């Protein structure tokens, strides 16, 4: 096999590798949906972030419009401070609400943005004021039990 022949084959090999990489990156991963677009930052504070993790999705009407960049604790107010990166092409009114929702029954948690009615939009670096924390299962259960106990108590009280 001549030198030119070998060089061609090796070039083909490397090209195949690159095509495979492109395939994996685009078709099999999330490069297109949110890779290199321009983003702006917003911040939201929650009493409880639940199971939210960095790189979780930020969705509005179910459509992914951004990612959670970081989650930290505000040492003074003991609130969870979540920094969001939102697609530059999507603007939200100043009174939009950020809620922590769960995908499916036991799925990952993500941030849902519900647009408000304000004429002015949130600018880069703004804080989303209206937030709803994650639903914590234990609180739900203890609430349920408390309610049950209260009902039973009022029933027996009524019977007496």
């Amino acid at each position, binding site marked *: 096999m001549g*030198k030119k022949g*070998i*060089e061609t*084959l*090796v070039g*083909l*090999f*490397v090209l*195949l*590798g690159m095509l*495979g*990489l492109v*395939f*994996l*990156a685009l*078709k*099999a*991963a*999330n*490069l*297109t*949906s949110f*890779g290199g677009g321009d983003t702006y930052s917003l911040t939201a504070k929650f009493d409880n972030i639940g199971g939210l*993790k960095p*790189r979780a*999705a930020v969705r509005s009407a179910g459509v*992914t419009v951004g990612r959670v960049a970081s989650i930290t604790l505000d040492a003074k107010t003991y609130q969870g401070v979540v920094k969001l990166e939102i697609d530059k092409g999507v603007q939200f009114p100043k009174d939009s609400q950020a809620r922590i929702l769960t995908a499916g029954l036991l799925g990952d948690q993500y941030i849902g943005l519900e647009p408000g009615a304000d004429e002015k939009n949130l600018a880069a670096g703004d804080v989303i004021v209206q937030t709803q924390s994650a639903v914590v299962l234990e609180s739900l259960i203890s609430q349920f039990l408390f309610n049950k106990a209260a009902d039973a108590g009022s029933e027996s009280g009524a019977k007496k």
Partner: protein
Amino acid sequence: MNFLALLGARALRVLQSFGHAAFFFVDLLRAIPVSLRRFGLVVAQIHAVGNLSLVIILSSGLAVGFVLALQMYYALVTYGATESLGLIVNLALVRELGPVVTALLFAGRAGTSLTAEIGLMKAGEQLAAMEMMAIDPKERVLAPRFVAGMVSMPILAILFSAIGILGAYVVAVLLIGVDAGNFWSIMQDKVDVWRDVGNGIVKSAVFGVICTFVALYQGHETDATPEGVAYSTTRTVVISSLAVLGMDFILTALMFSTP
């Protein structure tokens, strides 16, 4: 008492061989820039090590993709979660099976071929002849093969994963009837390019260094006899495989410990 002495001597010899291997590794690294100037040599070696491994890598990738899709389907169907099939197959391949299985196959095919070639060159005094001609065999013979291995492994691992996913698609969507849209979309949503694909590539690069280095070292240190060469090729496969699996554990812990 004698037994302890033997054990101690054995341990010392193992340490010494580690040290010897480390020096060899450093010499090899130092020889890389020179060999890159003779790029034709590197290209010829990429052909020998990469191109010629394509058949086994691609066929194995396809087979693994088929089987993975089938097995995961049976596991997921009980939970009604078959739309995640694409996602699971992708993650399994790109994060683990691609780099690791490719490395094991590479050690078996290309690694043994390298060890045997270098060992036979040593037995035929070709390396010594080169030395006496004032040409460093590390620069002319070993380093081009090392670079070729480092370059080829990631490419082979990528191709393994890619064809595995395609194979899984064929079985899952075309044969079993899982929804094609879900297959791709859930995969695309959850698989992260940098974290999953990128880390997989890093893994395969590390494995490439390991497998190629072990193969070249064993060939270089072989006894210049037929039995010596046979023994060295066996050692290449065993040591490469164990090192790859061990390194895989460490790398996985480092890369994927936080979800």
